């Protein structure tokens, strides 16, 4: 392979799809105009547990424009239920192993019990109100307090990917050896993703062929899942999803609605658009589960950890053992001889929880990093110094060296930019009018996700010297189309304005769902492979062609810049070569085979978070004044999009720390604040100055360009830094998120 000369990679290129998005010409999956479109409205169960004993559809069916009402009686049975496997695996990926309307059981409030299809959205929604549903209700179990005594230890969690218990050494012995112990229970409210675009699918049948427009993190995942559920061959299903208006994990698994849309379209013989309402987004696409983590740290007087015990209790659904892996990273990132991590679950009347940005790391590192802050306070050691004393250059669980780290630089540069040095550690030591000022920090880490299968792309150069590079992946707001244009340009030796990245279509080469911050790494690897393969092919044609000025040159001596191949003084442009040889275009396929799972390295992305808060102790108000995050995400393909991702993650961490909470009504099993008015996320006025520092580290293990991803790391540790700052400001240790006014009065 010939080396690329990076000129586009690393540049802060503006989003290539920016103009289309701000002008409204970008078509999202609910904006596809199709003739004779019908609209499906999902009717969710009012009760959280029991049975549907009857649905009288007569009034709804009598309404003008109503085309069909599908219920358990009339909806087709699914062909088979695929298992629950994270979509990154590149297989069918249903969000849960339960498909609605197959029988009369109700497992959770909002579970689809009927589908009303009409010629307008308003008519479908109105007719849905006219259904007379009768239920046999049983008392639901939904909250930690209700489920605590029903809990069990699962063998595996997270779609079978993660063991339910992780141990090394003897944690009891480690705690006995300790000079000091800190112990605490940290609770974390249930969260919902709430991207601005709700999940939506437009389905159209043409004979036996199904075309779906789906808001998804992986069009192939939609294709595979719907294929298995409907029993329709993959070859007859095409899924298009150019854009999604945010996802954060709620579009990472393929929930029921794309399949329901396809079933509805088949039932009425018209294309069907199905858009979930905001309220339905709280009960249809998974959530981050409410959880309670119990952390015990043992340490020597000089701050060396002797034991970490990390237990988690959380509700899962009636059909799957799901917990986000909050206990994972606490076993890995600090040197500590004795460790015990245990998940406990209980069956609850909710749907199966799902990925939500930094699934497990955000919650687990919140608890661990707050516990470390408590330990630092207890020992009188600076929080950064405490972390440095427990720093490890190897994965503490496997003993394998990190493929790259950069964590110490993150502490150092982050502390420098934030102005950490000279901090008075005494709580309540700074005041500004009515406001108590505090600062806090935390480590951030996020695994570089292991991939299961090859990732593919295709590159095509036209005779005019412009290129199209293709891969199936959608762009759900991350900027992937922009950075892949840069990767393609460098791989081909073209300027970015001559390259176009085409994506979001299962007719294009397969890419796994871009989850687990893996998108930039895996897609850039495939695109790089295709682009450099095409370049090598073009160079080989030139040097082997007696008509080319480059004839006879050694291919390794040929460099390509702006579409011109040069060796010494001889040169020929791509376009001259193709025109001279009567080739309208040339194509090459690229494939990247991810590293084997048994490579002798551990892979992790690191960072350090810092926050300054102001607390009005009389009124219980916390306002974040500034945040600094230093991150080492391998190579940065585009500092502008990377910074945006990291900044968004940090602000999300602010939301988790202070605002986000989905409240469950225990007796009804229903979320009580299922709207953007009542489920609080930060608004612009809450957003402080956010300073993002990028520390590039070389990593030739993870993928060809050494990209470790920025999608989630920005969020990890942010809530802990804020909670620690609240303690520093007030002396109060609030071991729950979000920290609310009443917690500080």
């Amino acid at each position, binding site marked *: 392979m010939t080396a690329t000369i990076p000129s586009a990679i690393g540049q802060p290129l503006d989003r290539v799809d920016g103009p289309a998005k701000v002008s409204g010409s970008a078509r999202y999956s609910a904006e596809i105009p199709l003739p004779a479109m019908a609209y499906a409205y999902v009717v969710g169960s009012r009760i959280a547990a029991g049975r549907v004993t009857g649905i009288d559809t007569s009034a709804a069916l009598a309404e003008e424009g109503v085309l069909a009402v599908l219920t358990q009686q009339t909806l087709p049975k699914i062909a088979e239920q695929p298992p629950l496997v994270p979509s990154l695996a590149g297989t069918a990926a249903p969000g849960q192993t339960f498909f609605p309307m197959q029988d009369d059981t109700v497992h959770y409030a909002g579970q689809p019990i009927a589908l009303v299809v009409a010629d307008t959205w308003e008519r479908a929604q109105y007719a849905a109100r006219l259904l007379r549903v009768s239920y046999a209700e049983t008392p639901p179990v939904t909250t930690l307090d209700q489920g605590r005594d029903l809990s069990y230890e699962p063998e595996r969690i997270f779609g079978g990917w993660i063991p339910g218990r992780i141990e090394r050494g003897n944690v009891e012995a480690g705690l006995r050896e300790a000079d000091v112990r800190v112990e605490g229970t940290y609770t974390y409210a249930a969260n919902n993703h709430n991207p601005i675009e709700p999940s939506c699918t437009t389905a159209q049948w043409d004979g036996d062929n199904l075309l779906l427009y789906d808001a998804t993190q992986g069009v192939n995942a939609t294709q595979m899942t719907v294929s298995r559920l409907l029993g329709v061959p993959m070859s007859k299903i095409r899924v298009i999803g150019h854009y999604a208006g945010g996802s954060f994990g709620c579009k990472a698994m393929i929930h029921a609605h794309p399949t329901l849309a396809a079933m509805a379209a088949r039932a009425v013989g018209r294309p069907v658009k199905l858009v979930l309402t905001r309220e339905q987004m709280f009960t249809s696409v998974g959530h981050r589960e409410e959880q309670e983590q119990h952390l015990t740290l043992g340490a020597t007087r000089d701050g060396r950890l002797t034991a970490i015990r990390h237990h988690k209790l959380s509700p899962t659904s009636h059909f799957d053992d799901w917990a986000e892996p909050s206990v994972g990273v606490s076993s890995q990132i600090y040197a500590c001889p004795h460790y015990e991590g245990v998940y406990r679950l209980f069956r609850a009347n909710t749907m199966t929880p799902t990925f939500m940005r930094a699934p497990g790391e955000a919650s687990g590192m919140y608890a661990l990093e707050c516990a470390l802050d408590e330990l630092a306070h207890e020992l009188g050691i600076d929080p950064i110094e405490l972390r440095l004393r427990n720093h490890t250059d190897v994965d503490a669980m496997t003993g394998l060296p990190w493929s790259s780290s950069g964590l110490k630089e993150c502490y150092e540069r982050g502390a420098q930019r934030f102005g950490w040095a000279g901090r008075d550690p005494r709580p309540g030591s700074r005041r*500004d009018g*009515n406001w108590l000022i505090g600062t806090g920090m935390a480590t951030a880490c996020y695994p570089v996700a292991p991939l299961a299968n090859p990732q593919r792309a295709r590159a095509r150069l036209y005779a005019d010297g412009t290129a199209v590079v293709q891969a199936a992946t959608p762009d759900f707001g991350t900027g992937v189309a922009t950075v892949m244009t840069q990767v393609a340009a460098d791989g081909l030796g073209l300027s970015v304005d001559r390259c176009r990245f085409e994506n979001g279509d299962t007719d294009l080469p397969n890419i796994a769902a871009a989850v687990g911050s893996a998108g930039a790494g895996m897609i850039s690897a495939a695109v790089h492979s295709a682009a450099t393969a095409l370049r090598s092919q073009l160079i080989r044609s030139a040097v082997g062609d007696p008509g080319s000025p480059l004839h006879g040159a050694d291919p390794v001596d040929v460099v390509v810049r702006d579409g011109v191949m040069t060796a010494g003084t001889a040169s020929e442009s791509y376009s001259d070569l193709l025109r001279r040889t009567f080739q309208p275009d040339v194509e090459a396929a690229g494939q990247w085979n991810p590293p084997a799972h048994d490579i002798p390295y551990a892979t992790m992305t690191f960072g350090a978070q810092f926050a300054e808060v*102001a607390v009005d102790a009389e*009124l219980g108000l916390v306002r974040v*004044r500034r945040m600094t995050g230093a991150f080492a995400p391998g190579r940065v393909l585009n500092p502008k999009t990377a910074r945006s991702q990291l900044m968004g993650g940090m602000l999300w961490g602010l939301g988790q720390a202070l605002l986000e909470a989905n409240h469950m009504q225990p007796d009804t099993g229903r979320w*009580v604040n299922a709207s953007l008015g009542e489920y609080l996320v930060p608004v612009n006025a809450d957003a402080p100055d956010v300073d993002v520092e990028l520390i590039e580290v070389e990593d030739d293990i993870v993928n060809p360009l050494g990209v470790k991803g920025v999608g989630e790391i920005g969020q990890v540790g942010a809530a802990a830094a804020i909670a620690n700052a609240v303690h520093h400001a007030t002396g109060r240790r609030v071991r729950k998120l979000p920290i609310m006014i009443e917690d500080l009065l």
Partner: protein
Amino acid sequence: MRPITYLRATDTATAVAAVSTDPTSDFLAGGTTEVDLLRQDVLNPRRLVDINDLPLAGIEGTPEGGLRIGALARMSEVAAAPVVRERFPLIAQALELGASAQLRNMASMGGNLLQRVRCSYFRDAESPCNKRDPGTGCSAIEGFSRGHAVLGTSEHCIATHPSDVAVALVALDARVHTLGPNGERTHAIDDFFLLPGDSPHREHPLEHGELITAIEVPAAPVARHSLYLKVRDRESYEFALVSVAAALSVMDGTIAEVRVALGGVATKPWRARRAEDFLVGATVRRDDFAMAARVELADARPTPMNAFKVELAQRAIIRALDMLSDGTGTGPAPRPGIGSPS
């Protein structure tokens, strides 16, 4: 939502006649709350009578030093009007701390007074709710009641009145002018908001089809030194957990005149008369502010989930009076450029 028909009224008398003669018609002004509730099947009119073309939009200072605000004046217009900012800073502040810029550009002042509660059980169209569906019971009393009222509640309803500006208007003894099927009426604002009692579905003493035409604020020199303090979880776009509209005038170290009203804690915009009575003639001292606040909240009836509001409301009253008496206005911003304490 149920299919509806729509009529755009061009004169006030026709609008009033159209709605008052048809129990299934409702007025439509800015629509910022009403359209949500229509979509959620909480409100089910058959027809909407759009009043946006009616000549009810002016904002005028009266020669006596008061204010007359047309019912269709938009929140943002009122907040920006120099006469409002000068004579009644608490009104401008209450408006600007409410809703979002987009909503304030659309929402009318009359509609603001008539906005429905944010109680999630009222709004979900599914749960029992005496306000939405009389006689079905109150889900909030045993439910998620963090945002609910601690004052003016009944065993039938504990929903908090959501308006910010109504709190300021209650502090100022505003009057609400209406035109109904039986002609013009004027309501003292404190009487305009009804306590839930045993009929929480009845929120105002209005007949069906009676239309707010204007809000009148009498002259109140004390209001030139006033503020609206709003305490909430996030910095913007959230209803108050506790808010205080206050005005204070001090002569020779004693309180000559004071106005205090509370939002976020009561089933109606809550005039804190007990606190005011305690404060008039008192010295400007934190202890007296605290005592006044305690007196006002003495009858609070919280749920376990909103018990913190009783304490928070008292602290907010003290803070508001502190700010007015030490001249810090809206208080030091936690960050340059952004944010008052609320």
